[in-house]
């Protein structure tokens, strides 16, 4: 047995992988990790299967203790954490590398810094039951392992295998800190629901990320976006990153755990290259939107994938 005790769950910690595919027709969203880059990098450092389930946390992460066996962990994102060895020695943690933990060692994930989400992975993976081919927890629909719930204090995490002392790894290249507050978007399918003024407001004014933001959506605050038609459309399928505008004129960006069908007009949709970065944006940040075309969006996405591959290729033994 290889057991980890959750001494403190953190604010919003849950098991995530890349989510469930092709079930949206019965109301099940893909869900899964919010920040795909950091999810994939975490598994790459641990040399896991790229879709291995791990723990996603927001703001304050979990404090865990290895109560049985040994393990190897890695943390990705912009995260401040400590490793407290059973001897009492405290090691200040570095992201984007692995650490070997012995029985009775503690890991304390204090906080994310200038970002919302971070990832904690274990070499070999966590022993979790898959539902519809995925271990992603959707706490709004109670889907996934752990009764579809977020992590709680005193939960026990079982690992798939015990790890014997072995090399630790590090990414020599890490993702660049992105401080860009202009988010690239593509034209939405219901632009005709907005007046010219409404569209100008959206593309020229700044919007504040509000506190009403979670895995499901990000509410923005700013100048009212003027609609020319009734703000109800025939409900239709949603894709993550859709920016819908209800009658209030305040946009809502639908994130990974979005509802599968929605009935508000969509003014724009986030370019895939900027989705992870957008979802990591802290409440209180002021954002602007810039329209790009499909060709530009495709090029920027290919660049993002290429950058990630280059980062993964920089993995080395310590």
């Amino acid at each position, binding site marked *: 047995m290889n057991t980890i005790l959750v001494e403190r769950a953190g604010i919003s910690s849950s098991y995530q992988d890349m989510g469930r*595919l*092709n*079930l*949206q*027709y*019965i*109301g*099940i969203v*893909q869900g899964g990790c919010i920040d795909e880059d950091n999810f994939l990098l975490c598994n790459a450092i641990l040399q896991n299967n790229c879709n291995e389930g791990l723990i996603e946390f927001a703001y304050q992460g979990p404090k865990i203790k290895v109560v049985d066996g040994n393990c190897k962990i890695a943390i990705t994102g912009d995260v401040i954490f400590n490793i407290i060895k059973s001897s009492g020695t405290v090691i200040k943690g570095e992201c984007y590398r692995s650490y070997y933990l012995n029985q009775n060692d503690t890991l304390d994930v204090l906080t994310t810094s200038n970002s919302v989400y971070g990832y904690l992975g274990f070499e070999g993976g966590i022993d979790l039951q898959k*539902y*519809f081919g995925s271990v992603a927890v959707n706490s*709004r*629909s*109670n*889907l*996934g392992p752990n009764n*579809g719930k977020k992590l709680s204090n005193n939960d026990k995490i079982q690992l798939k295998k015990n790890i014997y002392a072995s090399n630790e790894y590090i990414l020599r290249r890490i993702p660049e800190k992105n401080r860009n507050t202009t988010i690239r978007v*593509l034209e939405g*399918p219901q632009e005709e629901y907005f007046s010219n003024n409404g569209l100008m407001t959206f593309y020229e004014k700044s919007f504040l990320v509000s506190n009403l933001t979670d895995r499901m959506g990000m509410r923005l605050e700013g100048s009212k976006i003027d609609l020319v038609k009734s703000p109800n459309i*025939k*409900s*239709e*399928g*949603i*894709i993550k*990153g*859709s920016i819908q505008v209800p009658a209030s004129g305040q946009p809502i960006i639908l994130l990974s755990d979005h*509802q*599968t*069908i*929605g009935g508000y007009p969509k003014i724009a*949709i*986030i*370019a*895939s290259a900027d989705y992870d970065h957008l979802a990591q944006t802290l409440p209180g940040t002021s954002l602007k939107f810039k329209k790009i075309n*499909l060709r530009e*969006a*495709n090029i920027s*996405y290919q660049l993002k*994938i290429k950058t990630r591959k280059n980062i993964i290729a920089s993995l080395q033994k310590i």
Partner: protein
Amino acid sequence: MIKQILNFGDQGLICDFGDEVKKEINLKVISLFKIINFKIKNNEIQGIKNCTPSYNKLIINFNLEVISFQQLSKIVTSVQEQDLNKILENQKTWKIPVCYDEEYGIDQKRISEYTGLSISEILDIHQKTNFYIYMIGFMPGFPYMGDLDDKLYTPRLETPRVEILDGSVIIAEKFCAIYPYKSPGGWNIVGRTPIKLFDQHSKNPCLLFPGDNVEFYKINLEEFKKLV
């Protein structure tokens, strides 16, 4: 047939079948959905993350690392009108028990006041209607069913309720639905079914399928409690 194909962001494609909410049009959306799913299962298309049918649209979410908008558009436009008419078999009709007792049918009075019909007339019409499932979504297992008899047309509540019980059978405008989970909501509640619409532990987690039909029949409170 498909009126237009549009991109929805850089990883989405919209097949738009026109503006009408009609069963005949929705059946074509569902046929196209089945054809695309068949192609996914046979490995004729790769990189599809999701395919979501709604009243008059099929929205496909694809993985740009695997397939492009242009490649996917080609596949969708190659589907012939006659193929859309062929795939309409296997639609089931479900008979779903509903307890219409006052305890659960809390908005019957409101519907009666709005429509001018007596409660027994309302329940009679509700049970005689053959409902068609246009789509499932919003939350797992939630069926959007139509068309409700015009005589029962009642708007949504102005202030949505904070909590509606799971299994609540609800109506608003020309639609009827059932809540698979406890949820906030603004539709009018006519009764409650003991049938579980969605259970992730079950072999068939989602009871209903888009394109299926549903009819309701009355059970009393005692029967309801036995079936829960």
